C-alpha cells in the first residue's frame, strides 16, 4: 500500500500522470518520491507536493483536496487508486484496466477515451466524462464509469462501448454523437439528450425533453435491463424492472442513427 497526502493546496494546476499503479508499483520509496510532476511549466519532485508513505504498490491511496491535480490514473492497466477527497481533470483518461474510487467530486474529462476498468465517483463529476478528446474520433471504448452525484455537458460524447451511470441530473448533450455503449441517467438530463447519436442506448428514469429527430416507439421491458439492474445494484443504483415499462425512442434521424433512448414510465402514467 502506498499512501500519498497532498501537503498544501495548489493555485496553479499540478499535472501528475505518474500517479498510476503502472508507474508506481515497481518503485521503491525513494524512487517514488523523486518522480517528476509538472506544476504549470515547472518540473517538481512528487515529494515537493505530497507526503509519501510506503513503497510502490498496486494499491494507491491519495488524500487531500486534489481538485487541481490532473491526469491521475492516466493510462493505468491494473491495480487500485483510492482518492479520499476531490480530484481534478482527466482522472482515468485513456485508462485500460484497474479501479479508481473517488470519495469527493471530480472535474472535467473523467475517464476520457478509457477502454477498460472501473471508475466510481461518489460526488459530482464535471463535463465530458467518458468523452472523446477534441479532434478524436471516439470516446470511451470500454469499462465502467459510475457517478453518484451530478454531471455536466457532453457525457459520453462519441463513446463507442462501455457503461456510464450517473445518479444525479446531467446537463445538455448527453451522448452527443454516440456510436455505441450505454448511458444510464438515474435523475434525467436537461436538453438535447442523444443528439446526433448513431447507435447505443441511453436509459433515463426521469422524463426527457427529446429532440424533434427522435421517433417514439413501443413501451416494453427489454430483457437486458435486468442484467444492467443486477450490475448497477452493486453501486447502489436501483434500475426498475417491474411496475412499469420503458418507452423506446429512436434516433437521431438527422444522422440518421439507430440509437435508442429508453425512458422509464411507471404503470398508471400515460
Amino acid at each position, binding site marked *: 500500500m502506498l499512501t500519498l497526502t497532498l501537503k498544501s493546496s495548489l493555485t496553479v494546476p499540478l499535472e501528475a500522470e505518474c500517479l498510476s499503479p503502472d508507474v508506481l508499483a515497481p518503485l521503491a520509496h525513494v524512487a517514488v518520491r523523486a518522480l517528476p510532476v509538472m506544476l*504549470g511549466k515547472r518540473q517538481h519532485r512528487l515529494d515537493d507536493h505530497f507526503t509519501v508513505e510506503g513503497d510502490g504498490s498496486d494499491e494507491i491511496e491519495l488524500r487531500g483536496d486534489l481538485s*487541481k491535480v490532473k491526469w491521475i490514473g492516466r493510462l493505468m492497466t491494473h491495480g487500485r487508486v483510492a482518492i479520499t477527497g476531490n480530484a481534478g481533470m482527466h482522472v482515468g483518461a485513456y485508462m485500460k484496466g484497474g479501479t479508481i474510487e473517488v470519495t469527493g467530486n471530480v472535474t472535467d474529462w473523467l475517464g476520457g477515451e478509457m477502454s477498460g476498468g472501473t471508475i466510481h465517483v461518489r460526488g459530482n463529476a464535471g463535463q465530458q466524462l467518458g468523452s472523446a478528446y477534441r479532434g478524436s474520433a471516439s470516446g470511451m471504448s470500454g469499462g465502467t464509469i459510475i457517478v453518484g452525484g451530478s454531471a455536466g455537458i457532453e457525457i459520453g460524447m462519441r463513446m463507442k462501448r462501455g457503461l456510464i451511470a450517473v445518479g444525479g441530473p446531467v446537463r445538455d*448533450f448527453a451522448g452527443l454523437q454516440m456510436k455505441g455503449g450505454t448511458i444510464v441517467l438515474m435523475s434525467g438530463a436537461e436538453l438535447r439528450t442523444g*443528439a446526433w447519436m448513431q447507435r447505443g442506448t441511453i436509459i433515463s428514469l426521469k422524463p426527457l425533453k427529446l429532440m*424533434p429527430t427522435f421517433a417514439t416507439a413501443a413501451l416494453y421491458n427489454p430483457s437486458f435491463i435486468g442484467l444492467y439492474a443486477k450490475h448497477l445494484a452493486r453501486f447502489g443504483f436501483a434500475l426498475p424492472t417491474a411496475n412499469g415499462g420503458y418507452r423506446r425512442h429512436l434516433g437521431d434521424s438527422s444522422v*440518421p442513427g439507430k440509437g435508442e433512448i429508453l425512458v422509464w414510465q411507471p404503470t398508471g402514467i400515460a
Partner: protein
Amino acid sequence: MSSAVVKHATCTGCGCACDDIEVHTDGARVTRAVNACTLGETWFRDHPADSGEPAARIDGKPAPLADAIALAAEMLHAADLPLIYDHGYSTCEAQREAVALAETVGGVIDSYTSRCHGPSFVATQLVGKVSCTLGEVKNRADFLLYWGCNPAETHPRHTSRYALHPAGKFTPRGRRDRTMVLVDVEETATAKEADQFFRIREGTDFEALSAMVALVKGQAVDERRVAETGFTVEQLRLLLERMKAARFGVMFFGLGLAATRGGHGNVGAAYRLAMELNAFTKFVALPMRQHGNLVGSDMVLRWTTGYPFGVSLSRGYPRYNPGEFTMADLLARGDIDAALVLGSNAATDFANVPTIEIGPKLTPMQSGAVPRVQIATAATGVSAGGTVCRMDDLPMPLRPTLTSPHPIDEAVLKRILAEVRKKPAWYPMRSEAQIA
C-alpha cells in the same frame, strides 16, 4: 501638423475589414473616413495619433518603457503558469510574436475567440465545414440565409459590400438577383432588408437546424417537437426547397448561434445543414466574426501551433483543450499566476492576477483594477501597419494614416521576448551525460 488623404485604407471596426476607405487626417487625428460605416467612422476617430498615455506605467505610476519591459519579462518568466491573452486588436505580425512569447515563457495562449466564436471552431472539429470567401458570395450567391445575427447593426456594410446588394459576375442585377431570409429570435433592423423573416423560439436553434438536416436527408421528424421551435414542419420544408433551388446558397450565422446555450452544437448543426445541401446545390456556411483582427489571431495560432485558441505550451509542445486552457475558465478556477493582455482594457477580468497590459488605450487609473504593468502602443490600422484577416480568413494589408509616438505591439512583444530569452530556460535542461 499637415493634413493628408490615404486611399484604400483598411478598417478594423468589425470583421468585414473593408479596404476601400478613404481616410482624411489633419495629422493629429482622423477627420473623415469616406465609405466607412458608423462603426468604422467611430473606430478611426476614436484613435488619435497621440493617445495622451505615458509610454508605460508600473503600479499606476508613469515609468520608462525599458523598465516596464524588463518587469514584464521578469513577471512572465517567474510565473508558474502565465497566460498570454489577445483581445484581437493586434496585427498578425504582433500575434505571431505573442505565440513565440507564450512558447518561450511556457504559458497558455488564448484569444477573445474563446468568448465569442470559439464554439464555431469546436463545431468545425466535430462535423467539418463548407466555406468560401466573401468574393465568391458577392459574385455567385443568389440565396442568403442570415441566422442569429443582425448585420444591419453589427456589420453595417456586410449586406451592401459583400452579400446582398453588390452586382457580381453571376448576379449582375445585385439585390434583384438574390433572395434573403432572416431567422432570429426577434425582428431586428436586418429584417427590413429580408424577403422573409422567421421568428425562432429562443434556445431552439439546434433542434430546428437538426430537424432541417433530417428533412434534407428524407427522414421523418416529430411535428409536435418541431413546433416547439416556432417553425412548422411545412415552413421548414418550404425553406429547404428554396435553399435547394438556389444556385449558390450561403448561410451567415452570428453569436445568436455561437454564443448561446450549446453554441458548438448550434453551429455544428448549421455546418451539417450546409454540407447536406451540397447533395443538391452549392451551399456554404460562414460565421459573422467580430471586431479587429480576431480572425488573424485564430489563423496565426493555427499555423504556428495547429489549434485556433485555448492552447497550452507549458510542456513545451502545444496542447489544445477548450474549457481547460481558455481564459474565462482559467480565471474562474484561478489557475494562472500572471497574465499578459494584448489589446486594450485588461480591466476587471484580470483583477486578481498580476497583469501586463499592452494596447493603445490603457485601463484608466480611476478603475479599481489597474494592471501591474501598462505599455501604450500605436493603434492597429490607424497608426500601426501590418496585416489583419477578414472574416473569411483573407489577409488584408493595413494602410496606417497617422504617426504615433508609441511603438507598435509587435515591437514591444519582440523586446519582451528578447528580455525573457536572456534568462535561464524554465524547462529542465538535460545534462551532457544524458544527451550522450
